[in-house]
Each structure stands twice: as C-alpha cells, then as structure tokens.
C-alpha cells in the first residue's frame, strides 16, 4: 500500500525542484512539468519496477519509461535523481554548459535513467513499441511506459504507432497522455482539436483509462488498474487530466508558462507556495 501522504510530499519537492531548475538558467518548461509532477512521482516512487543503483541501457528485467514529450525533462531529472539514479546536487546543472542534464533528455551525455533522446515530438511511442517487442522476444515480463503531451498527439507518427501497437497486440505497453488541453499557441481545441480523444484511442483498438493526473490517490489507482489490464492482447493508454502549472497559482489556467521561466519576483512567489519537503538539491 502506497504512502500517499509521502508521495504528495515528494511531488511538492519535485515541483520545487522544477521551478528552481528553470529559474537558474532562466529557461525551460515549467507549465507542463508542474502539471505532471504527481505522475512522475507516482511512477518512479511507486509503480515502476526499477534498479536505479545499477542502470543498464538494456533494462532487462526492469520496467522502462520513455518520455516522448522531452520538454518535461526537469521533473524527470528530479525524480531520477531523488530515486537514486544520480546525485540530486547535479540538478543544479540543468540547461547549463557542460551538463549531463540537457534541455531535452539524451543518452548522449550518459546520464543514468535516459535511454533515448526526445524533444522532437511524436517519436516516443514508436521507441516504446520497439522496446516492448524486444521484451517479448527476451521473455521479459516487465512493462514499458510512456508519457506524451496532448498537443503532441497532433504528430502523425503517434498514430502510426497507435495503429501498430494495437494491430500487433503489444500488451506490455502503457502509454499515458498529459491531457491538460494546452499547447504553445493556446488551447489544443483552438489549435487543432483532438475531438473525442478517448473514442479515437478505442477505435484504434486500445484499452483506454481516464484519470485525474493531479489526484495522487486516483492516479495510483488508475496506474494499478492499467497494470492489471496488461497481458490481455491490447495496449493500454491513460488519459490524465492535469492542470498546467499545478502548484503555482499564477502559472495555472494558462498556456503562457509552457516554455517560460519565472523572473526573480515570480520565483520568490512560487517558492512560497512550494515548501521544501524532503530537502533541496
């Protein structure tokens, strides 16, 4: 049984990490990162079967996670460090010169926990399909997870992979969508609406779950439910309703903090709302 209060505490620290990480270089993507802090925390501190102390590229016998919307690098780095993949102190090098913590994640810098580069959108589900196929070939019963932005679903390659995964019954795969309804140019519905997103995934042959991605208890329950639905001939997707900027009031309810760092005053205000819970880097 997960300690929900403890996970919430960690999620608050991850949010604090995110804002501190983007403030220092004055660059990064706090909006979606704050919205997905609960997801990253739940995934890395409760759901994934992983071995952070002994990272291997192949990840045989472990669950794998692929971040398809690579601009959410900050919360990913935060949970990787806090889970023990590397020293939390290294979080202070985010987006700075000579850092392993590149603006968008890459294995090129040999940062433990990262297996493929992302940033150019729409590619992570294909990679996950390949990794899931490799697990089947290796008789490895562990699972493959992904995270995608909702705006990212406008990329055609996503639907190539959605079609393929269902057609080939890749049922050791759980995709998740950060369904915050916002993208750089505004609301997803006004940019290019996704319409009935749940119906679209179902029509392609996926098992679809929906949840509130900012409610830790509900999120954990849904992730558990998703896991129980693997191995049944269908890939599983979770549409997670989230609030962009969650945890910092002035960053919520707008797409304007997608790719913008806070100035010093804004940073101070954000820090007041995000108390240190398990220790700053």
């Amino acid at each position, binding site marked *: 049984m997960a300690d929900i209060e403890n996970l919430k505490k960690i999620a608050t620290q991850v949010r604090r990490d995110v804002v501190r990480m983007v403030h220092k270089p004055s660059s990064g993507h706090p909006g979606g990162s704050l919205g997905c802090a609960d997801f990253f925390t739940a995934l890395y501190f409760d759901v994934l079967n992983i071995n952070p102390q002994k990272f291997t*590229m*192949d*990840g*045989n016998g472990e669950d*794998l996670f*692929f971040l398809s919307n690579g601009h959410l690098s900050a919360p990913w780095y935060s949970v990787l460090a806090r889970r023990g993949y590397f020293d939390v102190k290294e979080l202070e090098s985010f987006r700075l010169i000579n850092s392993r913590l590149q603006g968008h994640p*890459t*294995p*090129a810098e040999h940062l433990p926990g990262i*297996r*493929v*580069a*992302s*940033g*150019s959108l*729409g*590619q*992570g*589900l*294909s*990679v*996950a*399909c*390949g*990794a*899931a*196929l*490799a*697990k089947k*070939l*290796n008789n*490895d019963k562990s699972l493959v997870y992904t995270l995608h932005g909702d705006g990212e679903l406008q990329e*055609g*390659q996503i639907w*190539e*992979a959605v*079609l*393929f995964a269902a*057609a*080939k019954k890749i049922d050791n795969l759980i995709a998740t969508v950060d369904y915050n309804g916002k993208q750089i140019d505004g609301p997803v519905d006004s940019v290019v609406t996704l319409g009935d997103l749940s119906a679209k995934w179902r029509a392609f042959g996926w098992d679809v779950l929906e949840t509130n991605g900012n409610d830790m208890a509900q999120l954990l329950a849904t992730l558990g439910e998703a896991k129980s639905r693997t191995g049944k001939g269908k890939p599983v997707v979770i549409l997670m309703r989230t609030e962009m900027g969650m945890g910092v009031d002035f960053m919520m309810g707008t797409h304007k903090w997608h790719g913008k760092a806070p100035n010093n005053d804004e940073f101070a205000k954000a820090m007041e709302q995000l108390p240190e819970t398990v220790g700053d880097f």
Partner: protein
Amino acid sequence: MNYTSTGNKDTRSGFGAGLSELGKSNPNVVALCADLIGSLKMDDFVKEFPERFVQTGIAEANMIGMAAGLTIGGKIPFAGTFAAFATGRVYDQIRQCVAYSNKNVKICASHAGLTLGEDGATHQMMEDLGLMKMLPNMTVINPCDYNQTKAATIAVANHVGPVYLRFGRPAVPNFTPVNQEFVIGKAVTLQEGTQVSIFATGHLVWHALEAADILAQKGISAEVINIHTIKPLDEEAIVRSVTKTRCAVSAEEHMMNGGLGDSIAQVLARKMPVSLEFVAVNDMFGESGTPTELMVKYGLDTPSIVEAALRAVARK
C-alpha cells in the same frame, strides 16, 4: 581488366543473402520492413525467422523509432525500405532516435539512385549519402556489387553503432570475391595506376574499371579505388593515391552536392590539393527510363568517367 564478372546480380539480393546468414549466426539480429519484403529480398529471413521479423506496414517513421527501441533490449535491428523513404522521409527520426541517441540500428536502403529506373524522380534518391554522412555517429556504406553487399551486411552486424547501408535495384556485374572480408572504412584498391586516381562507389565502381581500360588504350594509367565506406572515409588511401597520381575523379550515383566527391574534395583541400573532377548528378532530379538510359543521360556511365579523367589529367 583484371576483374571478371561472374554474371549480373542485384545488390539488394546480396543484402537479402547476408541478412539470412545473419539470422542463422546471430540470434540478436531482427529485421523490420515497411511493406517491401520482396523488393528488399528479405523473403528468406521472414520465412526462416518469422518471430524476429517486424512488418511495420507503410509507416517508415514508426519503423525507425521501433528499431531504436529494439536496440534497448539488446537487439540488432535491420530496418529496410527504399532509400527515399529510409532517409529523407524519416530524417528527424534517424537524427534524434538513432544518430543522436547512438543506437545500434542498421538502416538498409534499397533502390538508391537513378538505377531505380522507371518509377522516376519521386523514388530516385540521390541525396541520401549527404543526408546520412552529415549525422554524427553515423557510418555510411555503399557497396559495389552482390558479393560485397552481402559481406557488408554481415560486417555491419558486428559494428556497434548506427549504420546506413545503401544498395540498389538493377542486376549489375558481380566481380568482387565471394566471401570477401569487408572492413568498414577501408578502401579497396582494385587496380593500381600512376596518372589519375578514380575514386568510385556503388554501381559506379564497375564503370570505373571499364573506364580505366579505355584510358589505358589512350596511354593513361588510372588507379581505381572502391570507396565502399563513405564515412568514415579512408583518407589515408585517398592521399596515398593522389600523392602518386596528382589528380583525381570521384564517381557516384548521387548528387554532386553532399556526395562522395564532396568528402574527397575536403580531404584533398586539407591534405593534398590536386585537381578533382566529379562524376555525379549536378543539382537536378531524375526521371523515368531504364537504368542504362538514365545513367547515360545523366552522365554516370563509363564514357563520362573517361572524359572526367582526361579533364583531370589535363588540369595537372
């Protein structure tokens, strides 16, 4: 000529034969194809190792991403389609998930160049070597005949890292040794000469040998070197040859911009500036026609190499 063709064979069949052998010898080798099994000559592999074959359908971007993902489980994926769809169509996928991520993916590109023939310019990929050689971490290989393509296919499985392997559609002279050792990055001197170096790749290697014969009749001694690996380029072999001959010709079934000739020009400019003539397509798209008609019309035939060599010698 010191070389005899044992008959005409297509290089793509060399790929198919090599892949089949790999299937038997290396259990980690897997293959992917985007609805072109027959064209890529992957039938034998598909039949013998169905569990290690992934039919992706007509979805090349997904294929490249999946190939990158398969490496994460320790597999060695060979992803096959036409050169046009294996490069230009999926450049960003290759750039991010294969080259930048340094994944052990083998991109296998058939029907490269003009000799694809009647399908015309949409399918006649002549920018692929340039696109691929610009990517850090990428090894770029363009073998010259059936035997060499088979050997190259087997060799790239043992090279850890991204590889672009280019081959073609038509049956062409098969003249290099059966079961040859293929060393990535090591140029092969096919014929020694003293007055002009002809650096050829792919289908143009045979034409370079024919051109050397004609040049010999004109009293010009040509050295013919098969540059089967465009990147990493065997700079030492190039410099060694032009140190002797003092002029050179590059010959390839590719655009002049970004091709083998470009790479050689860089080496010569840095290390041994001598005159260099290019046998390549000069900034234009192809068209429908038979492979032979097209190679003549676009100046990629034996007489074109002879003329280029004469120009190079005259400029010494």
